[in-house]
């Protein structure tokens, strides 16, 4: 059995207008791209070869599915014309269809099936003809040699049109609530109705109410309530005390503090009400914002300048106490200097950094610590542009157990960390949230303030200790 998937541009035009920035054929349904459900079903029906046909662009879906080897199938792609009927489509793909029973899934439709069923024998034994159909699509079987068509009365699968924001929303919610066990959904489902992806940090005080599906690289901050019935995409931040119920938050979206997202869809800075498809694009970055994968451009240049200048000022301030105090501490053996290898900002290369620890006994070392003299050697790296002044605590290259920085968007190794500024214990998972938050939200001027805050925190630490 082979499968032909024919999806016409006009059937998914609504996605392009309502959900900007999304590739229609990769529209996530409970965090799994639409096309992958079709591929799964084709595999379940015994197909080893799948061809995707469209009168619209196929580039994005082709980049995602590649040659299909991920699913153990051979995928190919071809173009049809808007006016082509079934017969013409068949003629255009005759070489592909020859000598085999072919299943044609036509339309931008969701095929409801159950992974526990065996569709292979069922479909092979069925006569040619329509297996299932709905207003916007159908599944048909045919073989080149046979010509007797029959309609099959018993319907082993269901078809649901995905023709509007509302039908998309309803379908996603229906699957999440009632049918998630019928499909292979992405993420680690340690318990039923809860699918959670990689690199997801959930604050201790946040509450997750099943059923939920959460993508990769997601931060859920303190006091938030996720669910019931929430689909959270990848690269999403839900800020403090916000509630997401009966809603879909699509990829690359930031949801601000103390918000109530109920019965809605959020896509970057756009909030959509599925009924009647009302949508509003927020202009407040602290309500809803899109998240960029990496910070680039002029903001970064400004940041580099600000960081460098501040580092120079700090070096000038600290250099005299450093010259006076460190030699004494070194003689006393309280100044322990070594080097450690950390990931650089590209996450691919590594940098070697001086690593100083001060044994905290006696007034002199307390002063040295309060003044952050141990950070002075690394400050020079900021001037050299290798480090940021404030950002993430550098992740040591050996620490294989931690999530690699490649999975932490906006990772900037720095002398001081945002977590320190906010007085969070460095290295914990909560610290990761704080650093992540500022990596996306801070501006260069705020950075100076936060640097001062972390200096004061360290000062305060020693005086109260």
């Amino acid at each position, binding site marked *: 059995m082979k499968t032909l998937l024919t999806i016409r541009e006009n059937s998914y035009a609504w996605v392009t207008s309502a959900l900007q920035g999304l590739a229609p054929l990769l529209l996530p349904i409970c965090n799994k791209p639409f096309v992958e459900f079709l591929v799964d079903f084709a595999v379940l029906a015994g197909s080893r070869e799948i061809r995707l046909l469209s009168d619209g662009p196929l580039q994005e879906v082709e980049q995602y599915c590649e040659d299909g080897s991920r699913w153990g199938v051979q995928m190919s792609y071809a173009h049809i014309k808007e006016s082509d009927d079934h017969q013409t489509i068949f003629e255009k793909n005759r070489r592909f269809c020859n000598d085999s029973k072919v299943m044609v899934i036509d339309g931008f439709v969701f095929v409801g099936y159950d992974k526990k069923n065996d569709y292979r024998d069922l479909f092979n034994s069925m006569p040619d003809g329509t297996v299932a159909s709905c207003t916007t699509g159908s599944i048909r079987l045919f073989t080149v040699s046979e010509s007797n068509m029959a309609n099959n009365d018993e319907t082993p699968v269901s078809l649901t049109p995905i023709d509007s924001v509302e039908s998309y929303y309803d379908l996603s919610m229906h699957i999440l609530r009632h049918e998630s066990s019928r499909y292979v959904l992405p993420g680690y489902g340690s318990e039923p109705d809860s699918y959670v992806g990689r690199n997801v940090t959930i604050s201790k005080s946040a509450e997750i109410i099943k059923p939920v599906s959460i993508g990769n690289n997601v931060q859920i901050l303190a006091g938030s309530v996720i669910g019931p019935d929430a689909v959270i995409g990848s690269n999403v931040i839900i800020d403090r005390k916000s509630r997401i119920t009966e809603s879909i938050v699509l990829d690359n979206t930031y949801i601000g503090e*103390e*918000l*109530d*997202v109920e019965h809605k869809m959020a896509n970057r800075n756009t*909030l959509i009400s599925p009924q009647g498809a009302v949508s*509003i694009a*927020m*202009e*407040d970055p*602290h309500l809803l914002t899109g998240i960029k994968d990496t910070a680039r451009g002029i903001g970064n240049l400004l940041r580099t300048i600000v960081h460098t200048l501040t580092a120079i000022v700090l070096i000038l301030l600290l250099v005299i106490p450093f010259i006076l105090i460190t030699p004494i501490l070194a003689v006393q053996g309280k100044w322990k200097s070594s080097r450690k290898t950390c990931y650089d900002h590209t996450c691919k290369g590594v940098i070697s950094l001086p690593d100083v620890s001060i044994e905290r006994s006696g007034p002199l070392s307390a002063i040295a610590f309060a003044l952050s003299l141990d950070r002075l050697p690394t400050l020079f790296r900021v001037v050299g542009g290798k480090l940021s002044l404030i950002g993430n605590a550098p992740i040591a290259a050996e620490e294989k157990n931690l999530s690699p920085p490649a999975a932490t968007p906006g990772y900037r190794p720095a002398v001081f960390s945002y977590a320190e500024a906010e007085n969070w214990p460095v290295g914990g998972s909560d610290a990761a949230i704080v650093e992540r938050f500022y990596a996306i939200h801070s501006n260069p001027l705020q950075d100076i303030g936060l640097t001062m805050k972390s200096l004061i925190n360290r000062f305060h630490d020693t005086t109260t200790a």
Partner: protein
Amino acid sequence: MTLHLDTSTGKTIGVARIEGRLDATNSGILLQKFPEWLEQTNDFVFDCSALSFIDSSGLGAIVGCLRKALEKNGDLRLACLDPKVSMVFELTKAKQLFSIYHDCHEALDSFNTGKQQ
């Protein structure tokens, strides 16, 4: 943003029509005018039928007006929220603070019957 006084229901109610966008550029004007309006009456209806966009500072201004009215034992009720604007009220939970009516008459009548939505 101008106020007219409506006495058709027997009570003096300040009705203001909020038009266009209410955002950081003009929410200050509303906050400036409201104390003057409060000298004329304590009960208000904001007719939002022509309000097409609101952001958090606009929302902050309306909530500020409500607080001032409540302090004087009055109320500020909203009428004719556009669906988009309504979504922002829902999202920020501001919807829970206000009595919201479908049209201006309903909002005006509500002050007499004592009925609140």
